């Protein structure tokens, strides 16, 4: 028996077991999709029915500005739809990430003076990157309106000029002054607002984040659905292989490669189905990162996340090697999926957790895998993520081989 023959035997076995595994996987995916739809749906519906909470930060000392804000607060058109909160910058960012506010306006110091005397300071509207919803459109409209107020008012200068002339004032001098002031406004900028987006995590929208979370959670639960392939009720074949020169490291590598190929194939099939459904039905997933994505994009994404898949399959391989009984394996895999998925941010965005837990989770294997997938979707893959994924994969495989060797050397 050569390692290649052993690998081909493992693959043949996987093919025979695949119908059952695929059926379990389909049920698993259905459950995950349902959960994902419910989570995203709750975000959207709450987004559309609640009052908008807007923060205001920065220099609010100017009387005109304060008066303007008070006036907007008292307007009937906004009183029942928008709440304004005056906050410090860091506080505003925290509340934005915690979803306590929908966005905030950052008023730079000296903004009003800049407006009156032709400076180029801008009000910045800071928001989460969110799917296009009613509230995000509304915010854009508010920002646009605020901008136009300043620019359109320059037209008033012309009217004033005409009135001045009609009333015998020194039109030329006044005109020069007014026009110089107007040019100072118009040529510097025609908007006084800017919009800055900050993402939920790695710059992703809520939808993109949860798309990654669903994928990682699937890879976690895959350890349970591929139980038929990984669990060995009888390890005597390992002894037979060992006595014929196929040692622990080669055995583990053959088993791992076979399992990884099966996992990648399954993922590719799922991505192909999802990609085809999205492309053919032209359904808007509501996920900004997937807008315009076709079948090719889904499949190439599968290839790009191979390091994360390598890591997760190595983790499952280790669990099945380390634990002796079927029950202990299933329980451990389940706890890993639910517990590990939870603290890594698969169920809630990770910034909901204390900073110390976020940092701890980000260096654990599931956190590393999740980060890799998120960074890939955001097209901001870092070298750290690649190195961490590779290191964990190698570590898990080394541990698996060591446990196999220990068992061989010392087994009763």
């Amino acid at each position, binding site marked *: *028996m050569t390692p290649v023959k052993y690998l081909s*035997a493992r693959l043949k076995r996987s093919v025979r077991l695949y119908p059952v595994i695929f059926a379990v996987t389909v049920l698993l995916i259905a459950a995950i999709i349902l959960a994902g739809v419910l989570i995203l749906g709750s975000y959207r519906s709450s987004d559309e029915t609640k009052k908008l909470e807007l923060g205001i930060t920065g220099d609010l000392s100017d009387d005109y500005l304060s008066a303007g804000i008070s006036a907007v607060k008292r307007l009937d058109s906004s009183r029942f739809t928008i709440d304004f909160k005056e906050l410090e910058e860091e506080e505003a960012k925290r509340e934005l990430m915690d979803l306590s506010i929908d966005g905030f306006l950052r008023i730079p110091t000296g903004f009003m003076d800049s407006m009156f005397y032709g400076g180029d300071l801008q009000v910045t509207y800071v928001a989460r990157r969110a799917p296009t919803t009613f509230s995000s459109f509304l915010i854009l409209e508010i920002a646009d309106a605020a901008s136009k107020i300043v620019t359109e008012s320059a037209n008033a200068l012309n009217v004033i000029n005409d009135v001045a002339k009609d009333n015998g004032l020194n039109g030329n001098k006044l005109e020069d002054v007014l026009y110089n002031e107007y040019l100072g406004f118009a040529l510097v900028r025609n908007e006084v607002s800017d919009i800055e987006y900050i993402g939920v995590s790695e710059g992703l929208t809520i939808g993109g984040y949860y798309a990654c979370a669903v994928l990682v959670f699937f890879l976690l639960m895959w350890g349970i659905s591929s139980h038929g392939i990984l669990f060995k009720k*009888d390890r005597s074949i390992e002894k*037979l292989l060992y006595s014929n020169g196929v040692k622990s490291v080669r055995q583990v590598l053959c088993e791992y490669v076979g399992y990884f190929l099966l996992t990648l194939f399954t993922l590719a099939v799922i991505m192909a189905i999802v990609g085809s459904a999205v492309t053919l039905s032209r359904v808007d997933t509501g996920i900004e990162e997937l807008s315009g994505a076709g079948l090719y994009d889904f499949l190439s994404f599968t290839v790009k996340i191979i390091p994360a898949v390598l890591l997760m399959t190595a983790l499952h391989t280790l669990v099945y090697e380390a634990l002796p009984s079927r029950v202990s394996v299933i329980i451990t895999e389940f706890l890993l999926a639910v517990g590990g998925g939870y603290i890594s941010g698969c169920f809630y965005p990770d910034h909901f957790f204390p900073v110390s837990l976020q940092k701890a989770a980000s260096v654990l294997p599931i956190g590393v895998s999740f980060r890799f997938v998120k960074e890939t979707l955001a097209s901001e893959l870092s070298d750290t993520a690649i190195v961490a994924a590779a290191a964990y994969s190698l570590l898990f495989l080394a541990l698996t081989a060591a446990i196999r060797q220990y068992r061989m050397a*010392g087994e*009763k």
Partner: protein
Amino acid sequence: MELKVRNVNKKYGRNVILDGVSFDAVSGECVGLIGGNGSGKSTLLGILAGVTRAESAEFLCDGEDLLKNPKKRASVVGYVPQGVPLFDELSARDNLLLWYGRKKMEEELEDGVLGLLGIGEFLRVKVGSMSGGMKKRLAIGCAVYNDPKILLLDEPSAALDLICKEKILSYLKNFTDNGGVATHDVGEIEFCDRLLVLKDRQLSPVEYGGSVSELVSAL
């Protein structure tokens, strides 16, 4: 061919399982190991097969230590471990093809060891659907793919029906008649040329006079 097993010592943690175990065997001989549960029979066979590591051991075949030469050992020793070292989801044929080349497999089925074991009767059957006896015969068939001169069998006839036992014993007789040496955790005492009992971490010969109760008292 002359086999000498010398000074096999094995412990698990602080628990000494084998303490200076030694025995000899020659071509054409079938040596049976008997002992109580947990006495170390499987451990001893595993050490000789190169699977389990001992604190110290020598396994000399015509003066050469097979434990220091894995390649030689793999070509000379056939080992059938306890359990079912087969893939349940594959057929007998697919399991055999992991070890045999296609041509050799067909030759052996026609007129060789696989034919002696009667594997041709269930070649297309999935292992998961086989009886215990069929699995054991197939496992032996897989283990001897390299025409070993020394055969180590761990519980070869446990829980087998008479027909299966007959086929296995028939194969073992053929094997030893052709100069092979078989050592096994014995189920069929009458077949063995010699019996060794493993007791109190030591191996010692025992005579079988036809009385099972004598053997039991030796344990």
